[in-house]
């Protein structure tokens, strides 16, 4: 079976685009091959800074033949119809058509045999299509050809294409095509500096081996492995440990074809800078790794990955990198020391000039809102009010420092360093960093009460604000990371076991967004959310956004989302029933406990059977209420209970309801479930022995009312109608 080898050789492909490009090339080519009937055995894509390569192994030499049948007009149909059929089917005369019969009589059928084409011809059509349609995040035009419209675009100028096809045992053929002025062939080049002449390649194994000889490691996974192993060994040999960094490793592997790992050093005095600043400087600007001593502290060494085996053993390269790193660290040290000269609170007035969002006012206004909310939350989460106030005031101040200006990813962390340096309380300093957390699924959740108060206030202010101006996430678009903010609130509350009524936190009643345009900003550029604007903010909508995030969160932990619905639905139906919003489920911790208890209960026989009974009751009620156009919400009359099972159920329902409500009030959800479980025998017996639709109308109505009592009683714990199964 023949194999395909493809290489698209260009100027340097951005490192961050390489992995996806390799995947895309593989998927696009193989999908089209399969569509064309060319089923393959295996495919592998490789990528280096200068080449995208693909091998597709075990392809057939030809497409399979295809037989197509086209149904034509009836025998004896008008001449035009016959002529049209012949034209469409590509037949010369009607004699070439077959005659078939069905219920309506005889009709013509054209059977055309489409012979499969040689695979190499099909590939020669597919590859240029793929190249033209390639989904680079950004692509460009170049050279003389770019004077004409429709010229080829690629991520950077494309120079040559290798395309060969053939079985293992033979010399492969060149798949001949031309795209954007580049003609396919079988020659490529090796390393830009370590190899000179172009060379011909045959098939994949030959290609990879010849590249290796020409100082190119084509497989990105192997380059990563080489870099990681060499870097670890080099650090170890000097008595250090590499500080591993998977993102940097992938990027660096995308910047070299022939990785050569070297080590350099910098002056000890720079170690006075916070280690994160050193690491970020060296990583972001120089794409080098840092190393640590065995005790875990950063060492004055760095690991660089060069792209050449230099004739001087790398001396000049190390010396050059050391000079740049020295200059960068000097800058960082200067920034850090400059920052230390200004107190965080002295930076705050500048926030009056900085717009947070054109409709949500300045950063200063946002900080004031966070402060108000954090102070309100403080007693609820056990935080010291004055420390919380201080933390909220200072938590954003590091955004105006030089170091954060240079490295935005160090926001928060620098705030902590500067707060500690100016003698702030440890909780206040920690909150400067931790109020941003958790920043993602893997991030840690703050546990210090001051951090918790400020972190919740920061996130809730963001959510309420963007909800108020109707900038909610839609589909995949969530530019203000509101889903992350809501999930952050949820995780902080749950992981710290906090009791919080969310509705009291999310803008209860009053509009916190009374905003004046900041000084110096032209009125026309600001559309402030003023006091006169309608406080068009649906708190229940935001609450249901939290419910959705909670569902996602619980589902990821293996809980059933219908149980979450069953608990949330309690508030909604009660509100409909007019019993007020106090039943709205907005206490995340209680919701989760309820869901857990419900899940455990439904795992028992009692739970499953009771659920079945309640569902049966609800179904009967739904049907009969619809039939009668009435609802049976009145309490059943004990005097009308005719059978023992009715009496027993009536009594059991009353007891179960009272016990369950008592247990819920004490937040003992397992107890509430146990109370419900006692209902089961009575429900089972009732359905066993009692005919609901009795001939006696009064009896029937009373029994329906009793069924409604079952439904109502179970509402003490959840809305069972939302539960599946």
């Amino acid at each position, binding site marked *: 079976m023949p194999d395909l080898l493809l290489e698209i050789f260009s*100027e*340097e492909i*951005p*490192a*961050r685009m390489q992995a996806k490009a390799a995947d895309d090339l593989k998927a696009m080519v193989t999908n089209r091959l399969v569509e064309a009937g060319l089923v393959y055995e295996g495919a592998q894509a490789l990528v280096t*800074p200068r080449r995208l390569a693909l091998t597709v192994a075990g392809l057939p030499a030809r497409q399979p033949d295809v037989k197509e049948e086209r149904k034509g007009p009836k025998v004896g149909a008008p001449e035009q119809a016959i002529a049209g059929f012949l034209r469409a089917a590509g037949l010369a005369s009607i004699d070439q058509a077959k005659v078939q019969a069905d219920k309506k009589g005889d009709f013509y059928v054209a059977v055309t045999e489409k012979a499969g084409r040689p695979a190499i011809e099909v590939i020669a059509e597919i590859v240029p299509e793929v190249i033209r349609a390639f989904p680079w995040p*950004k*692509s*460009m*035009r*170049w*050279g*003389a*050809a*770019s*004077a*004409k*419209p429709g010229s080829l675009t690629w*991520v*950077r*100028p494309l*120079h040559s294409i290798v395309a060969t096809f053939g079985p293992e045992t033979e010399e492969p053929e060149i798949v001949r095509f031309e795209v954007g002025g580049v003609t396919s062939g079988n020659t490529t080049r090796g390393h*830009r*500096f370590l190899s000179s002449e172009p060379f011909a390649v045959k098939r994949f194994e030959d290609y990879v081996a010849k590249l290796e000889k020409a100082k190119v490691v084509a497989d990105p996974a192997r380059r990563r492995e080489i870099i990681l192993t060499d870097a670890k060994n080099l650090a170890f040999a000097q008595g250090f440990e590499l500080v591993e960094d998977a993102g940097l490793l992938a990027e660096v592997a995308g*910047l*070299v074809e022939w990785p050569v790992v070297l080590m350099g050093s910098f002056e000890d005095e720079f170690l006075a800078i916070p280690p994160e600043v050193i690491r970020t400087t060296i990583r972001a600007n*120089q*794409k*080098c790794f840092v190393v640590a001593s065995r005790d875990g502290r950063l060492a004055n060494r760095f690991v*660089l990955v*060069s*792209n*050449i085996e*230099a*004739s*001087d053993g790398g001396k*000049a*390269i190390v*010396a*050059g*990198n050391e*000079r*740049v*790193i*020295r*200059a960068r660290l*000097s*800058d960082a040290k200067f920034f850090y020391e400059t920052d230390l000269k200004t107190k965080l609170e002295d930076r705050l007035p500048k926030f009056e*000039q*900085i*717009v947070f969002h054109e409709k949500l006012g300045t950063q200063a206004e946002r900080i004031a809102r966070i402060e108000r909310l954090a102070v309100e939350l403080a007693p609820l989460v056990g935080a010291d009010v004055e420390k919380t106030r201080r933390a909220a005031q200072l938590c954003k101040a590091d955004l105006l420092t030089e170091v954060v200006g240079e490295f935005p990813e160090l926001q928060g962390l620098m705030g902590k360093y500067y707060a500690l340096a100016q003698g702030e309380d440890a909780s206040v300093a920690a909150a400067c960093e931790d109020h941003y957390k958790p920043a993602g699924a893997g991030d840690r959740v703050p546990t210090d009460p001051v951090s918790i108060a400020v972190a919740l206030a920061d996130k809730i202010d963001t959510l309420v604000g963007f909800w108020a101006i109707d900038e909610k996430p839609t589909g995949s678009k969530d530019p203000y990371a509101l889903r992350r903010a809501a999930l952050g609130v949820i995780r902080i509350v749950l992981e710290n076991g906090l009791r919080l009524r969310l509705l009291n936190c999310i803008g209860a009643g009053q509009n916190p967004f009374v905003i004046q345009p900041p000084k*110096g*900003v*032209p009125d026309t*550029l600001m559309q402030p959310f003023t006091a006169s604007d309608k406080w068009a903010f649906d708190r229940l909508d935001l609450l249901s956004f939290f419910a959705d995030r909670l569902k996602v969160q619980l589902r990821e932990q293996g809980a059933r989302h219908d149980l979450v619905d069953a608990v949330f639905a309690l508030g909604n139906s009660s509100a409909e029933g007019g019993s007020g919003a106090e039943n709205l489920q907005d206490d995340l911790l209680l919701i989760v406990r309820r869901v857990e208890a419900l899940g455990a209960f439904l795992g028992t026989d009692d739970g499953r059977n009771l659920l079945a009974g309640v569902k049966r009751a609800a179904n009967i009620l739904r049907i009969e209420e619809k039939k009668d156009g009435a609802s049976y919400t009145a309490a059943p009359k004990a005097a009308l209970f005719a059978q023992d099972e009715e009496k027993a159920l009536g009594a059991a329902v009353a007891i179960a309801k009272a016990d369950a409500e008592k247990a819920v009030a004490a937040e003992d959800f397992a107890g509430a479930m146990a109370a419900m479980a006692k209902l089961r025998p009575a429900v089972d017996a009732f359905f066993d022995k009692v005919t609901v639709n009795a001939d006696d109308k009064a009896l029937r109505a009373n029994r329906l009312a009793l069924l409604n009592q079952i439904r109502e009683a179970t509402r003490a714990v959840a809305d069972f109608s939302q539960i599946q199964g």
Partner: protein
Amino acid sequence: MDPARSFQGLILTLQRFWARHGCVILQPYDMEVGAGTFHPATTLRSLGSRPWNAAYVQPSRRPKDGRYGENPNRLQHYYQYQVILKPSPPDLQDLYLQSLYAIGIDPKVHDIRFVEDDWESPTLGAWGLGWECWCDGMEVSQFTYFQQVAGIECSPVSGELTYGLERLAMYVQGVDRVYDLNFNGREGAEKVTYGDVFLQAEQEYSRHNFEHADTAMLFEQFRMAEAACQKYLAAGWSGEGDTRRHLMVLPAYDQCIKASHVFNLLDARGVISVTERQSYILRVRELAKACGEAWLATDGAGASAVPAA
């Protein structure tokens, strides 16, 4: 003139190199600009169909980067070496590497890398794709394939190389402080350093840029330059349809450059708020776009060969 011994030797080597490759060697544009790209030989000449190869040194001013002569790397006035090749030749990367070799950077000893860096100039309404070129971890050049300039698609695309001359010179001379660069290649009493030539200017202009530049005058100059640019552009149009030509785009473009520099000075003085900043950038871009459109209707853009759209 050894490029590794003197700043001027480095410049002369690059001049000779690009002259040998057919470039018109221009002298710096006689106006204050933020980068070599602003020179009409790049901005305007990169538009239109006419081939164009040029190279030149451009003194560049970034008022905000002034450090009173105290920072070893940052300057508010520095030199760029600018090469513009239209259309971009297929071997542009090789030519660039040869030019590095010419100034003493041997790719068998030094680690040269092309690291993604997409270039964009909001004031010029221009963008392109390319790289920053690294030598042993230091960015020494920008390498860009212009895709759009003045809001107009480049057709054909130009290749632009911008060498940071001070950085390169510091590298090849092995100097850590820009003011210690040997300027003239002499030693002893005859040696002239970069500091001898520019330190005083850095100190004086830093005072000017951050503390004393007359902001009332500058705001007025911005308005005047903007109005003049629009006026000259309006006055320069002549003819109709296929024969429509612009006869005064270069003087108009000078005013666009002036507005851009005045804005940079105002920005350095800290008198433009974050939101206003954006609107000033947009105003300069509007001028640049209008100049670009006018340029397309001139001989320089090849308008005589192809009827104007």
